[in-house]
């Protein structure tokens, strides 16, 4: 049976992981390779690295980081942030990334999804969508929720699927950072609407939230950052509890 995936998300700036990380035994919490390896040891099924570097040097630094991670890591990982062209994606693929995640670049240029899928296969293309409820409608947002677009979330996701997205990473900006649980209503609507895997993101605060999102919606994976980084939810405990609730996981 296909397992539900647990995915820690790491923010990367200038080739270093940022945000506080609270692991015992971790010599250098800013070293993406060591952190990734630790997560793999804990039983993470996959990792997402989000590049938040703003400088022009970003591309070169990122490629070096991806190579270092690929050398050490024996589970799949996705790279997101600042990918706007087929060339960007090609360099990341050759450096060992399993998937790339595109967000605003896809909104601004939907053909990019099609181009990437044609060049590398749909399995390589994750479309990340940040959504926020505005006057009763789910609207796609950019820039971490600060900039609203004219796209309704459901329509945009349907379009992304038809253009060749292999997976959707859906972050509810209303839930993100609240630790009050995932947006199960919207996630359920989306998973019933499309036929590609969906990663739930935004709102994880405790183990029950993961159980809830897998029991109440058809999502394939759940992503979180701080609850894993600060050791609030150890991945082995989380997986044991999911298993206890008959949710298929990899132990």
């Amino acid at each position: 049976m296909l397992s539900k995936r647990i995915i820690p998300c790491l923010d990367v700036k200038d080739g270093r992981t940022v945000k506080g990380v609270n692991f015992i035994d971790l010599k250098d919490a800013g070293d993406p390779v060591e952190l990734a390896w630790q997560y793999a040891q804990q039983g993470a099924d996959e990792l997402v690295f989000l590049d938040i570097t703003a400088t022009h040097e970003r591309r070169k630094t990122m490629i070096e980081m991806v190579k270092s991670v690929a050398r050490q890591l024996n589970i799949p990982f996705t790279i997101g942030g600042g990918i706007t062209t087929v060339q960007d994606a090609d360099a990341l693929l050759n450096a060992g990334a399993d998937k790339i995640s595109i967000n605003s670049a896809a909104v601004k240029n939907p053909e990019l999804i099609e181009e990437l899928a044609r060049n590398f296969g749909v399995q390589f293309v994750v479309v990340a969508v940040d959504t926020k409820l505005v006057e009763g409608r789910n609207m796609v947002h950019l820039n971490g929720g600060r900039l609203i677009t004219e796209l309704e979330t459901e329509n945009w996701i349907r379009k992304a699927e038809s253009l060749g997205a292999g997976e959707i990473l859906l972050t509810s900006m209303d839930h993100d950072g609240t630790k009050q649980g995932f947006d199960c209503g919207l996630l359920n609507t989306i998973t019933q609407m499309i036929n590609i895997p969906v990663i739930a993101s935004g709102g994880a605060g405790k183990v029950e939230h993961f159980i809830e999102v897998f029991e109440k919606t058809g999502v394939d994976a759940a992503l979180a950052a701080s609850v894993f980084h600060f050791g609030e939810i150890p991945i082995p405990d989380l997986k044991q509890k999911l298993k206890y609730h008959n949710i298929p996981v990899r132990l």
Partner: protein
Amino acid sequence: MIGIVNYGAGNIFSLTSALERQHLPFGMVNTEADLDKYTHIIIPGVGHAGAAMKKLQDTGLVEPIKALKKPVLGICVGMQLLTAHSEEGDATMMNIFPLQTRLFNKDQGIKIPHMGWNNIDHKNNSLFEGVENLTQFYFVHSYFIEYNPTFDIATANYGMPFSAAIHKDNFYGVQFHPEKSGIAGEHLLKNFSNLKQ
């Protein structure tokens, strides 16, 4: 030493990294003459199976590979190349295994691609020596190889049973990615390198 068929179908950095972690020496196969340099051959591959077959044909390596008597392992699309035909691009493949590579049927209520960790039920082939049955491996694919009891050495289930691994004489294929499948995947690569000629 392992030779990796270098025909330009997808990235091989993850594969070479996994081999390095296992301290398994490797080199690249670009020409027919290179095949003689190695004891074991791996055919990697991601992306479009029809396009991959075309690239392999362009290297002139199809017939020399078919004539090999040393262990050969196809991974993912590299495995699909060993079959007779793929629905992806309606392409004629190498026909080492008289099997079909088919598209998953979404009418079965499954999502495509099949992406993530799935259990395999293996039949104690040497390739899986020391790998506990029902261990999960990492899959990511939209096309699959039909289950056939003659060649199947590991079965996975996604909407229906399909072959996660196949074997015939010196030829092996795995649909999952051993280089991304944690410790079990690394173990499988090691087992392959230990297969006798």
